[in-house]
């Protein structure tokens, strides 16, 4: 695993940020999420021997980054989330799944397909955990503030 891929992830995310028409002043911030995602992914891979777990950790960190940036810049978390998630999307596994099926290697194809689904599942779990937690914290703070006013 090579740390230069973090820079590629940043560049790719930046291009996606432009394609999704993200406001000019938030372009770099959003693309930096892609950098963080790939960086965490590589770090995770150093300690765990599983791509799925590394993907899960990377999603946790990028979702956390998105929520923090959303509060800081007063914009929806989606703006950051959508862009920084792109480097983790299992594009290459989708391709290899298809390739194995075309080559008639159904066994390996199914295996790779299940692996793709596992990564997609890890991404979803990461996002679900962080956004639900942040919503919960937000609600608790809101409630505390209103009860103080009363």
């Amino acid at each position: 695993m090579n740390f230069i891929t973090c820079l590629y992830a940043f560049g790719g995310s930046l291009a996606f940020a432009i394609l999704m028409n993200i406001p000019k002043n938030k372009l770099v911030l959003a693309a930096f999420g892609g950098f963080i995602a790939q960086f965490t992914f590589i770090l995770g891979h150093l300690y765990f021997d599983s791509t799925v777990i590394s993907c899960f950790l990377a999603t946790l960190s990028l979702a956390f980054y998105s929520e923090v940036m959303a509060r800081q810049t007063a914009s929806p978390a989606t703006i950051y989330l959508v862009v920084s998630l792109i480097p983790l999307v299992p594009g290459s596994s989708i391709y290899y799944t298809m390739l194995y099926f075309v080559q008639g290697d159904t066994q390996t194809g199914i295996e790779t397909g299940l692996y793709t689904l596992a990564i997609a599942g890890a991404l979803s779990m990461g996002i679900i955990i962080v956004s639900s937690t942040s919503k919960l914290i937000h609600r608790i703070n809101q409630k505390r503030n209103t009860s103080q006013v009363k």
Partner: protein
Amino acid sequence: MTLSEIGHIAMEMGTLLLSSGAETYRVEESISRVCLSLGVKEAEIFVIPSTIIIYLRKSGDEAITRTRRIHHRAIDLTTVDQINDLSRRLGREKLSYLEIIKEIETIRAIPEYPLFLQIFSTGFAAFMFALFFNATIKNSLFAFMIGIMIDLQIRYMAKFETNRFFMTVIAGMLISTVAVVVTLLGFTDSFNTIIIGSIMPLVPGLAITQSLRDVIAGDYLAGITKGLEACLIAAAIAIGIAIPISFFHSILGVII
């Protein structure tokens, strides 16, 4: 402000949000926040990815129901950001009907990034992700060219309102045809990384994320719709790429 004016504002904002790719729960939240801050007693909002239905009641039995069908959806997160901002501002400031309509028109008129930059970005995304997946510089440059090509192709087909599934299949076929032909002509020795880099601009990242967020918010109907869209596009990419590859595989007997 009369009830029908409030209804108009709410509908305009909701339509802009939904047609720019916002999650349905965000549309519902924003509309109801706006209506309540404009002095409506009761606001029932129902949004699915293709329709908005609102019911507003002010005082007594004065009530209106409005509905709108969304035909065209594109990704424009600047609009989502700005409308979200406006809906929060309406809770703090008092603006008149005409002022709010003017604000909405300003947001609608915010220009996108220039066309050449968008086309270049598609190529650049393909280039970067080819490098990301361990391609050589030469292969990545091929991915860059293919990226620009599919961007032009999708733009051209979108002019004739072709459906997204078909456009993606054609894009996939273009990608793998060019990649395989370039390899057969001997410019590179492997087309795998070229193809993987080039399909990244087609990957339904927004649909995946939004469908998840809708499901978390308890909007299962919207979540399923967007999730199905994501699965369909992923399938379209795979089908489009598989057709030329299996053609070369069986007709020419090329080992791949």
